[in-house]
C-alpha cells in the first residue's frame, strides 16, 4: 500500500483513502470503503466550487479515526487561502464524516460543495485479480438518502449515504449550497452505511479501545520510541480484532487491506505473540478455529478432517463458490500451530476449562497430522494442494508461488515438506503430551506422542541437515531431495526446539551472519542464493513476525546476546515506521541505507507484525510461565537502559517485570 494512503479500520470494516480523504479506486489502487470482503464505496471525491482540495496536514487520531486539514484548489505556489476545511472521518459499519468549512474573510461566502459518490461493489478477490462483475449495479434516491446497490440473483449489497443538512442529489453524488458567514464556519455530517442482505444474528457489544488499553500491561522505558511502538501496537491490535459472522468472539484479522479476515496461521501466531499482554485473544482464536475445524475431505476447499482452516471469506466470489474460502483449508502449519497455542495458552492463563473443552479438536488435529498431513507415511508433514485451480500452491507461511527454491534457483517439486512445519509438529506433539497427561487423563497418548516426537527429531536432524553448509534444508521436495537454500526458516527450528543442540551454534552463526542478517533483521532468504531479491516477497525481504519468533528461539537455545540484537534491531526499525511495523520490508543491508526500505505492497497494519514487538519484549525480559509463576530473566542491550512492564496478566493474577540494559552488543 502506498504511503500516500491513509487507512482507518475497525474490525471487519476499513477505509483506504488518499491524503485528502478522497477515494478513487482503480485496478491498481485498493482504495475504498470495505466491509466483509466487499468494496462498498469506490469513489468519494470532495470538491469546493469545482476544485479538488489540497492537503495541509493529516492526523491519524486513532486507528479508527482520521482528520484531514485541507484548502480548496491545488496549485504549485501557495496563495493565502480565505477558505479551509477539516474533514474528520470515523469507521463504524461504514463511516461517519464531519466536514467543516471555515471562512477566514470578512465577507460571506456562498460555496458549492460536491461529493462524488459511487461503488463498484467489488469482491476483494476481484480487486486483487482485476476481474469483472457478474451482477448489476443500481443507484436511487430513497427517503433523503442516496442508495448505491448491487444485485446478483439474491445476493444484494447496498451503500446508503445520508447527510445533515440534507443534500441535493444528481447523477454524480451529493451537492450542498453552503453559505459560510464571515469569520465563521459551515458543518455537514455525512453517514455512509454498508448494508448487506446477509443477516446472521448480532455479535453483541464490542469492548472499546479504551477498555482494551486499560486492561493491557503498562510499559515504561527509557527508550521513548519503544513506548510509542508499544502503544501503537496495542491500538492496532485492538483495531484488527475481527468478528466473524455466525460465531461469537473476536480474533485478530491478518492485515489491511488484503487480509482483513480470519486466517488460521496469522491469527494463531499473533495470539501467541500477544499472550503475555492480551491472553483473551488466544482463547477466542482457539475457540473460533475449533468451530471451523475440517470435518470431511473436500478437494475444492483443501479440507480434511481435523485440519485447521487457512482463510475464511464472505464476499461474492466465495458466496457463489467461485473461490473456495468458505472456509479454505490450504495451510499445512495451522493445525500444529493450533495445538502449540492451546498448550501455551494454558501455561500462561491456567485456563483448564478451554483445554478440556478443546480435547476433541486437539485429538482431531493430532490425527490430521499423522493421517493427512503426512501424506506418504515418511514421518513428515508435506503439502500439495487438492484444488489445483484456485488453491494455494505453497501451504507454508511463505505462501507465494516461488518461495520454495533450491540455492541455484530451481523451484522445488511437490509435495513439499518444509522444515519449520516439522518443527511445529515436534513442538505440538510434545506439548499435547503434557496436556494429555495433565488434563485429558490419557497417559498412553502422552507416552505415544513423546515417542513420536523423539523419533521425528532424530530423523529430522539426519534428513534435513546439510553438513557442508552447516544448516538445515528449507524443505524436502517431492523426490525427498534437500532444498538447499539458506533461509530464515532455520530460526523457527530453534523456536520449536527440534534442532539438535550441537547443530544450533552453526545455525545461529548463519542467522547473525551477513548473508542472512541485513542489520535491520533476518532476511527470508540469504544473499548469495540465486533466488535472493531484497524486494522479493519471501525471497529476501525481512519479516518482523519471522524475526520475533527467531529471537525467542535464540533465547530458548541460550543465545541471549543474539536474541537481544535481533530484538533491538527490529524495534529500531519500528521507529522508522512510526511504531507500526509493516508486513515486510526490504532486505537491503543496513550499511547501504540509514533506514529500513519499504516493501511496495506490504500490508499495514499487519497482525503478526503488530504482534512482533510484544514477542520481542517478552524475549528481552525473558518472560516465561513456570509452575504457576512468572519467571523474569531480562537480557537487554545497554542501549535500552530500562524497561518496566507492569500488570502482566496470567495465572498468577498480575505481575511486574523489570529489566536493565547490561548487554554490550557488537556492531551488526
Amino acid at each position, binding site marked *: 500500500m502506498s504511503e500516500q494512503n491513509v487507512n482507518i479500520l475497525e474490525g471487519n470494516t476499513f477505509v483506504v483513502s488518499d491524503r485528502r480523504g478522497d477515494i478513487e479506486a482503480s485496478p491498481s489502487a485498493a482504495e475504498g470503503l470495505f466491509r466483509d470482503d466487499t468494496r462498498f464505496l469506490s469513489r468519494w471525491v470532495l470538491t469546493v466550487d469545482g476544485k479538488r482540495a489540497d492537503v495541509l496536514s493529516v492526523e491519524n487520531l486513532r486507528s479508527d479515526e482520521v482528520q484531514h486539514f485541507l484548502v480548496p484548489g491545488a496549485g504549485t505556489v501557495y496563495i493565502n487561502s480565505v477558505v479551509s476545511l477539516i474533514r474528520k472521518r470515523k469507521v463504524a459499519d461504514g463511516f461517519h464524516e464531519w466536514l467543516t468549512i471555515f471562512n477566514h474573510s470578512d465577507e460571506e461566502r456562498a460555496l458549492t460543495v460536491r461529493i462524488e459518490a459511487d461503488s463498484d461493489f467489488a469482491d476483494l478477490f476481484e480487486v486483487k485479480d482485476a476481474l469483472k462483475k457478474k451482477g448489476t449495479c443500481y443507484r436511487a434516491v430513497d427517503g433523503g438518502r442516496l442508495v448505491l446497490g448491487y444485485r446478483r440473483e439474491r445476493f444484494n449489497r447496498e451503500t446508503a449515504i445520508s447527510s445533515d443538512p440534507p443534500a441535493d442529489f444528481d447523477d454524480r453524488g451529493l451537492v450542498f449550497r453552503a453559505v459560510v458567514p464571515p469569520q465563521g464556519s459551515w458543518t455537514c455530517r455525512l453517514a455512509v452505511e454498508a448494508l448487506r442482505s446477509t443477516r446472521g444474528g448480532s455479535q453483541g457489544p464490542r469492548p472499546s479501545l479504551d477498555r482494551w488499553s486499560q486492561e493491557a500491561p503498562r510499559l515504561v522505558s527509557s527508550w521513548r520510541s519503544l513506548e510509542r511502538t508499544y502503544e501503537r501496537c496495542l491500538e492496532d491490535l485492538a483495531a484488527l480484532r475481527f468478528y466473524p459472522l455466525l460465531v461469537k468472539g473476536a480474533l485478530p484479522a491478518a492485515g489491511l487491506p488484503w487480509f482483513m479476515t480470519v486466517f488460521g496461521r496469522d491469527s494463531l501466531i499473533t495470539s501467541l505473540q500477544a499472550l503475555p499482554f492480551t491472553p483473551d485473544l488466544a482463547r477466542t482464536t482457539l475457540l473460533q478455529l475449533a468451530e471451523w475445524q475440517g470435518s470431511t475431505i*473436500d478437494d475444492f476447499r483443501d479440507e480434511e478432517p481435523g485440519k485447521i482452516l487457512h482463510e475464511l471469506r464472505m464476499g461474492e466470489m466465495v458466496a457463489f463458490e467461485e473461490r473456495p474460502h468458505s472456509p479454505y483449508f490450504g495451510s499445512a502449519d495451522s493445525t500444529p500451530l493450533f495445538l502449540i497455542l492451546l498448550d501455551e495458552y494454558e501455561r500462561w492463563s491456567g485456563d483448564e476449562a478451554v483445554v478440556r473443552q478443546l480435547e476433541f479438536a486437539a485429538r482431531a488435529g493430532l490425527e490430521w497430522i499423522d493421517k493427512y498431513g503426512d501424506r506418504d507415511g515418511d514421518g513428515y508433514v508435506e503439502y500439495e494442494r487438492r484444488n489445483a485451480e484456485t488453491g494455494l500452491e505453497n501451504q507454508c507461511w511463505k505462501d507465494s508461488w516461488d518461495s520454495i527454491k533450491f540455492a541455484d534457483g530451481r523451484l522445488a517439486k511437490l509435495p513439499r515438506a518444509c522444515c519449520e512445519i516439522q518443527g511445529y509438529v515436534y513442538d505440538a506433539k510434545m506439548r499435547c503430551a503434557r496436556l494429555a497427561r495433565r488434563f485429558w487423563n490419557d497417559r498412553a497418548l502422552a507416552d505415544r506422542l513423546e515417542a513420536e516426537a523423539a523419533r521425528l527429531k532424530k530423523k529430522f536432524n539426519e534428513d534435513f541437515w546439510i553438513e557442508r553448509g552447516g544448516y538445515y534444508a528449507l524443505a524436502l521436495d517431492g523426490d525427498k531431495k534437500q532444498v538447499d537454500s539458506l533461509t530464515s526458516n532455520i530460526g523457527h527450528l530453534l523456536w520449536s526446539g527440534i534442532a539438535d543442540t550441537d547443530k544450533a551454534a552453526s545455525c545461529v552463526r548463519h542467522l547473525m551472519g551477513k548473508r542472512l542478517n541485513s542489520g535491520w533483521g533476518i532476511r527470508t532468504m540469504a544473499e548469495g542464493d540465486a533466488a535472493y531479491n531484497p524486494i522479493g516477497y519471501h525471497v529476501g525481504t525481512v519479516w518482523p513476525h519471522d524475526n520475533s519468533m527467531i529471537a525467542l528461539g535464540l533465547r530458548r537455545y541460550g543465545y541471549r546476546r543474539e536474541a537481544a540484537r535481533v530484538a533491538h534491531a527490529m524495534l529500531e526499525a519500528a521507529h522508522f515506521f512510526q511504531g507500526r511495523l509493516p508486513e515486510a520490508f526490504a532486505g537491503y543491508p543496513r550499511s547501504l541505507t540509514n533506514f529500513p526500505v519499504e516493501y511496495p505492497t506490504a500490508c499495514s497494519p499487519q497482525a503478526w507484525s503488530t504482534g512482533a514487538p510484544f514477542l520481542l519484549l517478552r524475549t528481552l525480559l525473558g518472560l516465561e510461565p513456570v509452575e504457576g509463576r512468572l519467571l523474569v530473566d531480562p537480557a537487554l542491550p545497554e542501549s535500552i537502559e530500562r524497561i518496566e512492564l507492569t500488570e502482566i496478566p496470567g495465572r498468577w493474577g498480575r505481575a511486574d517485570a523489570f529489566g536493565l540494559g547490561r548487554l554490550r552488543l557488537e556492531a551488526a
Partner: protein
Amino acid sequence: MKRLLESSRPESPLPPGTRDATVRYRFDLREGGGWILKLDQGRLAVEAGEGGADGVVVCDQADVPKLLSGEMNLLTAWARGDIEVRGESGVLKLLHTYLRHAKGAERKKRAA
C-alpha cells in the same frame, strides 16, 4: 423427509458442541408454510406444530432437500442470500457443522 434426514446423519464423530446441543429451528418456506427441525443429541428430527425456536431459516422449498442432505453448503447459501437466518449468532453454525458431517455432505472432489 425420513429418507432425507437419514442422508443427513453424520458419518464422522460430531464435535461435542454440536453433538450435545439441543436446538430448534423453524423453517419458513418462501412459498408459505414451514415446520420445526430439532437438532438434539446429534440427531435431526422434524417436529409437528410451530412452537418456539432458537433460530429461523427462510428458504425456498426446492432448496430444503439440498440443504438437509448437505448437498447445498449452508454457509455459502446464506452468503448468497438464498437462505436467510434469524436468531442468536451461532445457531446457524451448529446446523452447518452438523451438515458438514452428513453422509451426503457437499464435497467437490478433484476431477479424476
